[in-house]
């Protein structure tokens, strides 16, 4: 009967389709929760094939905002967490969700602004002075507003400048609740300022009238850390494979791979894992 043939065909299709996925999962693989800015920079596309070739381990990166990435680790839906929000990471370990935090690399944030520069901050070396100028001028400023590492850094800087636009919510301060790419798109469209990590900025394709207006300030330093999710809290965590990944990332080989990643000839990430940590 035709219906029976159809049903059989569908079942075969389903089996074929869905078993290719779990079958791959049965092979060596781990889930790493990381951030959208790290993924958007293209770093993973560069270093993960090297790791796979050496160890045969497939690294599946789920890219989310920092807050969500840590939450994914807390829930046990990832084996390794790799983000750039040191204070939140240390809390993560202290609360028992992670085994140990390792420094991996840093990149820096840059203040991006329109060529028209309404707040006249271009060329400055002092981020706090620039933020104050933007505040004074009421120039449009795009905030990620999503509890990401970048967002936390932005809030820290406002606080250091004794300002609180996130609290007072003036009309020039636009919280969009989205990732770095979306923030840059928005800033480009409205001729506004935005704090971005250099990595995402360099590989961003829609720069239009945006450019770097402030960089180089020590306070714009952005540290990345990697943590194994605690197998005592989640028994299924692939601790050996996860630890292999962490060990490789902080090893001379991994660090060298990170440092050699370039876009347009520019290095994005500066490895700084402590040897013997």
């Amino acid at each position, binding site marked *: 009967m035709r219906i029976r043939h159809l049903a059989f065909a569908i079942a075969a299709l389903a089996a074929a*389709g*869905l078993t290719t996925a779990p079958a791959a999962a049965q092979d060596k693989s781990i889930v790493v929760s990381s951030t959208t800015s790290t993924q958007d920079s293209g770093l993973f596309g560069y270093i993960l094939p090297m790791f796979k070739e050496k160890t045969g381990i497939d690294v599946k990166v789920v890219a*989310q905002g920092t807050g969500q990435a840590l939450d994914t680790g807390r829930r046990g839906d990832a084996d390794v967490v790799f983000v750039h929000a040191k204070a939140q990471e240390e809390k993560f370990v202290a609360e028992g969700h992670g085994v140990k935090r390792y420094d991996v690399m840093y990149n820096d944030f840059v203040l991006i602004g329109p060529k028209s520069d309404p707040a006249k901050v271009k060329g400055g070396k002092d981020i706090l002075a620039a933020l104050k100028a933007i505040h004074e001028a009421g120039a449009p400023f795009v905030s990620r507003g999503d509890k990401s590492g970048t967002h936390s850094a932005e809030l820290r800087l406002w606080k250091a400048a004794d300002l609180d636009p996130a609290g007072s919510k003036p009309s020039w301060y636009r919280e969009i609740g989205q990732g770095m790419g979306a923030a840059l798109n928005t800033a480009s469209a409205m001729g506004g300022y935005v704090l971005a990590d250099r990595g995402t900025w360099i590989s961003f394709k829609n720069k239009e009238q945006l450019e770097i207006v402030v960089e180089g300030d020590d306070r714009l330093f952005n540290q990345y850390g990697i943590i194994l999710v605690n197998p005592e809290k989640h028994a299924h965590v692939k601790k050996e494979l996860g630890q292999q990944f962490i060990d490789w990332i902080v090893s001379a080989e991994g660090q060298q791979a990170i440092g050699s990643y370039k876009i347009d000839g520019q290095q994005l990430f500066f490895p700084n894992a402590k040897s013997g940590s």
Partner: protein
Amino acid sequence: MDASSALELILTGDATLFAIVRLSLLVTLLATVCSALIGLPLGAVVALTAFPGRHAVIVIFNGLMGLPPVVVGLLVFLLLSRSGPLGDLGILFTPAAMVIAQTVLITPIIAALSRQVIEDLWAEYRDELTAMEVGPLARVKTLLWDARFSLVTILLAGFGRAAAEVGAVMIVGGNIENFTRVMTTTIALETSKGNLPLAIGLGVVLITLILVVNAFAWGVRHWSEAHAG
């Protein structure tokens, strides 16, 4: 990368793009089939049976047609997360989770619309089938078969809805490269990277795919109508 490179990717048979297209079709087609298996009989039963609260059920089905994909994604995520009730299945961030999420999303569409179609057809068939003393199960089969053309259109509507959504598959799939990345999540990713022309190019590919599926279904219908009415 720009729009012409999207075309280039298609014409040169770029392996990554094809893998993404293949996964998109697989996930959405499977979800459509599962939704049909659940939604069609469900719609038929509600259409043909009188039970207390029937009107409330119909209103709820109709309302659930507008389920926001991102909410469905979040609910399925909470279900499948390791910390959730079905966590031990370990299928979060896999294509299976994406199929489940899309099935949840489009089953109400299929159930609600097929309920309407079958109820209308039953009004027409009731006297004759009652006179022929056709039993309840046979009635359902008869109506489902005789309504087949309208039901296929309903399945296509479900397929279109699933193929176009990004909220659910993004959350439960994680947009993992070479694993759970589909057309819509790729478009979202390229947009966030500022690759707007490429994103639009991929958008055109997606729309074309949906049109091709619809054209195929139309062709099948046209052929069957000519041969069987």
